[in-house]
């Protein structure tokens, strides 16, 4: 899609740290059209995933998430360590609790 619908956007090649406030991410992959999946690193809280270089155009991050009893929808945000030009949708988008995988849409301008 585009800048309008994406969850996180920034300049191409920006680094970003996607953060959730719910669920535990067990594996994460960067998906770019016609390219193989790239495994992403997850921090020890299992709620932050690092994308080293934001691809140009639309791409997706697939998050394999374990939801705990009582978890609410996870808000998609970016954490410290992200390039200053990285921003999230306003209002912030969410991932539905209980659904796995969750997809985060990125856009690199």
């Amino acid at each position: 899609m585009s800048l309008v619908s994406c969850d996180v956007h920034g300049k191409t090649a920006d680094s970003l740290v996607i953060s959730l406030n719910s669920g535990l991410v067990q594996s994460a992959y960067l998906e770019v059209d016609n390219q193989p999946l790239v495994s992403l690193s997850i921090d020890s809280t299992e709620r932050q995933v690092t994308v080293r270089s934001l691809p140009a155009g639309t791409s997706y991050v697939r998050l394999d998430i374990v939801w705990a009893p009582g978890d609410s929808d996870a808000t998609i945000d970016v954490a410290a360590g992200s390039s200053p030009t990285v921003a999230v949708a306003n209002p912030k988008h969410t991932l539905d609790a209980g659904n796995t995988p969750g997809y985060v849409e990125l856009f690199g301008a």
Partner: protein
Amino acid sequence: MTMTKRCVALLFFFALGIGSDRVLAQSATTSAAFCDKDIRPAILAFCHDLADLQTQVNKNVAEGDLSGDFNKLDLSQPQAAVDFITAVANQMNGQTAAQSAAQGLVGWLNQQRTDQQLGAGASATGTTSLVSKAGGSQLISLAVDSGGLTRSVNGTTATLGTNADQIFRTVTNHNPNCLIYVNCTSLGWFEDTVLNKLSLSAGFSLAQQSTATTASSGLAAGPASGAVSSVAIPAGAGRLANIGAKFEVRNKFDPHQQAFQNKWKDLVDGNAELKVALKTIGDQTELIKSTLQKDAPQLDDDALYQAAKSDKSGVALDNYFSAYFAAALQKVEADASLPANVVNVLQSRATYHDLWNTMLDAAAGTLFTLQYTFNQPLNQPKTHDFTVVYAYSFKAMGAVTANGGFSLYDGALPVGAQYGRMHYGQISAEYDQNLSAKTSSLQEQLTLAAYWQYQPQPSVLNIAAGTVAPGTNIPIPNGTQEFVGTAGSLWVAQGKLTIKGAGGIDIPLGVSWSNKTDLLQGSKVGAQVGISYDLSSLSSYFGGGSQ
């Protein structure tokens, strides 16, 4: 209120009190939506997102601020793939291989279970189960067991079992053959906390043959003139022998407490199997996501917004989305691999669901089952049997089930009764281990069980008025009760092999030894054989269609 009614009421309210705290991620995040009673699978699967959108529109949130909500409903977007799979699994209901595969999946899961009991309990005249298990029937089950364990008379008992929730789903036309958290949604609090955990059963004594007589142990109740020196062991056929209820109890827990969350995270981190299952779901979802991105039409955000704007109740939004979903499904169904891909995801979700529930049991604490059985043994006083069942799984190393229970005589004791209210107390345990590889179509389960029962008094046998004392032609005028057998300990050990077929048919074959039986002294070596059928696979004939 009779004692029977008091017992049932007590069990029911106890069950309500303990079972009300279970909170799953699904129920915690689903608002009181206008769409959660809709019978259309697509609306049910996307209900949470439709409700969110309608709520925002009703609050006059601008269309431009709802892109996150639109993404989740746009089938050409990856964000909609998970709910699409849930919807399509039921949309294909009864029409494609998807549902039959999903039903086969339930059968496969039941085959792996070591905690399920479909037949009669230890005290029946025809039974193959020395120890009561924590789990019961999935939809409706029928078991026929032959051979006694604690009883002197070998009989044949037919047991009809059901899960209260599945019956509720059947009569309300909601698919009973679904897995919560996999491909169905909850019908509410009462379903989650009460019905889902309640199993019911009724046992019918088909045959109870005996020609034996035994020495009486003394007068239990009645006039002294009615005492007899020997009694005939009762024989009968075709009668309701017992009714029972089982309620599964999980320890209370608060998912918002830090201690629970820490424990949950530790369990997740240490569960390699769960990570693999999760990744498999993701990888298989990718295939369907690709089909959707390629073939599904893009959602007209503006038209959807206008539909929501035109009707605050959400009906117009539902109708618009339902039409969009149907049109999209028609296009993506051109991909011949779609049904198989959906089935693969469902199977992976089911494996994950099983692991997730096991982890919840471990995080929340010990799982107990409370069991109540009202027994009507032939020519013996009726009893109320209460049992607490504890089960612990060692995963690949098998499972242990332990029972503790007691039995009380029903109703007012006869005047001059030489016995008290307590019939017996018992403890028992069994170890179960699946012997076959999980991929095998025939599963074999080995069971080793031991049972100890203590009776303060010998068993009581009713001698009806007019009965002729054995060996005489003297009728007993007023009826009486005689003690038969001995007080004290009754020990039973059993080894059993259960062959579990893929179609829901189980065949248990057991051998047992006991130091005595309820009415006779002296040890007994017995054999037990049975057949049970779980009718879950026939659920489509009961009319369930939606979630």
